[in-house]
């Protein structure tokens, strides 16, 4: 099958969905410019022009409500935030309006707005431009929340979102944008709530989301060299979470590492651990390990940033620890984003 980059997959899904549904309108700051949100809106703008790929003023708070107003009267807004951090300003609209609209007004219609938020990890983005807000979004019933890790999922989940009758938040890690993979040219959807076994294994389960799926796979490579077979579960969907897939894997391996791009406390890593603990803690032959951000805001200085962000090596060490093995001195593994060149 044809290979394309993650950002291209997003662009393709956008164009195909817009072709199929005239109600879809893309809106965001600079969606129409030469950069096209890292190339994800360029094709849509070329194809549909400014009426359907709409540059908007700054003002995230109102725009969340404006999108809800449009969505509840017949449009299908696809709102793009070039950093999900800016969505703090949109949270009233997201949580108090979009997530609750259908329920609060008696199930007479939903607020089908799709919100893309890009996580700007690394390269000195700093504390306010690199947060990964999946656990916040995941806490609230009424929203769907997904974190595509592969180009194929980036397309399929976005196309599913654009057919949803309810609001969807899609978190995309900027570090994945150049990643290539096989993606069907045809329109297709990936359902919400279904995780995926990114790599099969028997000795330890690594549950991961987004960028951390790749770090986990690289850790699994390194483990394989040592004869350890790690299973990597890509949750894909934060809400609903595919509990069954997680439980089935942990039941087989008896060991759980959760790798996330956000903090441990009240995060995805907590939720995955809780799913197992509330199902059957007896499954666990060893304590759960959370491989997450250091418990501080994101620093800029690169040695600190490297230490702050979890990578393949942290996943590897966590797995070895659970298996009671010494890390030894294998080659140091670089972060996925090594080699990135600015400006961002």
């Amino acid at each position, binding site marked *: 099958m044809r290979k394309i980059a993650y950002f291209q997959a997003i662009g393709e899904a956008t164009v195909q969905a817009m072709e199929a549904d005239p109600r879809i309108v893309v809106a965001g700051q600079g969606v129409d410019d030469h950069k096209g949100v890292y190339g994800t809106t360029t094709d849509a703008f070329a194809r549909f022009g400014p009426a359907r790929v709409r540059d908007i003023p700054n*003002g995230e708070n109102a725009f969340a409500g404006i999108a809800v107003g449009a969505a509840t009267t017949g449009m299908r807004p696809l709102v793009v935030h070039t950093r999900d951090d800016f969505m703090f300003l949109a949270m009233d609209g997201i949580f108090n309006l979009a997530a609750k609209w259908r329920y609060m007004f008696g199930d007479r219609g939903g607020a089908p707005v799709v919100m893309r938020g890009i996580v700007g990890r690394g390269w000195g983005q700093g504390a306010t431009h690199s947060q990964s807000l999946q656990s916040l979004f995941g806490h609230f019933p009424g929203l769907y929340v997904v974190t595509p890790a592969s180009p194929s999922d980036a397309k399929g989940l976005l196309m599913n979102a654009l057919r949803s009758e309810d609001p969807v938040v899609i978190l995309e890690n900027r570090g994945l944008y150049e990643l290539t993979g096989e993606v069907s040219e045809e329109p297709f959807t990936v359902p919400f709530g279904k995780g995926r076994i990114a790599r099969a294994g028997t000795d330890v389960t690594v549950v991961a989301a987004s960028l951390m799926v790749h770090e986990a796979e690289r850790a699994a490579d390194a483990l394989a060299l040592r004869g350890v077979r790690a299973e990597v579960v890509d949750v894909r969907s934060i809400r609903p979470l595919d509990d069954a897939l997680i439980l089935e894997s942990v039941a087989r391996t008896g060991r759980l590492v959760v790798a996330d791009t956000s903090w441990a406390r009240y995060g995805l890593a907590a939720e995955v651990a809780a799913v197992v603990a509330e199902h059957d803690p007896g499954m666990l032959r060893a304590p759960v390990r959370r491989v997450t951000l250091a418990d501080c805001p994101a620093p800029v200085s690169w040695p600190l940033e490297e230490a702050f962000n979890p990578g393949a090596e942290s996943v590897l060490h966590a797995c070895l620890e659970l298996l009671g093995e010494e890390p030894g001195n294998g080659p140091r593994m670089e972060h996925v984003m090594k080699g990135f060149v600015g400006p961002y």
Partner: protein
Amino acid sequence: MSPVEQPRTPRQDDGPADLADLLHAMVRIRVAEETIGDVYRDEQEMRTPVHFSIGQEATAVGVCAALRREDLVYGGHRCHAQYLAKGGDLDAMVAELYGRRTGCAAGRGGSVHLTDLEAGFGASSAILGEMIAVATGAAWTFAEPFDRTEGRLGRIAVTFFGDGASEEGVFHESLNFASLHRLPVLYVCENNQYSLSSGLAARQPAGHSITDRARGYGITARRLDGNDVVAVHEAAREAVRHCREGRGPYFLELDTYRWREHVGPNRDHEQGVRPAADVESWMRRCPVRRATEALRATDPGIDARVATWTRQARAEVNAAIDAAKASPFPAVSDLLTGTYAT
């Protein structure tokens, strides 16, 4: 007049409404709210915080009488009058206050989350300023080419909000967007001088009005007496015409005053919250009384008609209360229903 005269909502075409019809609508809303207020206080069975518009009826009635049924109105926490003025179903509203399955929001939303899409009442909500944005978004839909199908062309969105809500940033961001894209949205600020117990002087710089701010976005804006239903209606007709003709958003600031406490049926000046003299002076400017007086010269039978309307409205709202009480609560087994589409 006949004892079976039906309560009427104002006409919803583009002609001017009769003052008698406007008065009738105000009387009906006044009676409905007063009756609900008493029952609310005495029974404690409507378990949802209720914000009454008693004393402010002219704003909702005057504006809604200038709208078509298909235009969508959005309100804030103080939304009963707007809902009823737009033709929202009274039974469904009362059932909502009682948390019944037959409520307009199926018992999920309560007093501050009314909706009646049939009547063109889009939604109301309790977070200040939210609906300013939502109405702007609805107007965006109405301005989009795919909405320009037969019969939908020319819909407008209207949002009512208070002087307090205008302080929220969403006001600024929404007006900027609407003006930039010349969206067909009418912003109606019901300036009752208070946000909770805080007067305007504690919240906004003296000598400058909300209207001045709206003009900063290039929006045509007018400020007028919100207790004069005829003036409100005339201004609203002009505003609606402006929006419908694609000339962009319009802003109305309507000065008015609420008689009851912020939330609940009591009179807060009796607790010393506001100067009793202020309340009394505004009560003398009662919009119902003023409309009645204006009609009296030409229509000597008006007092009798008002009395009839009052009786009818009381019967209507009592019937709605009885019907609501006789309605079932939502089934607990349906608790999760409506969280997502099924």
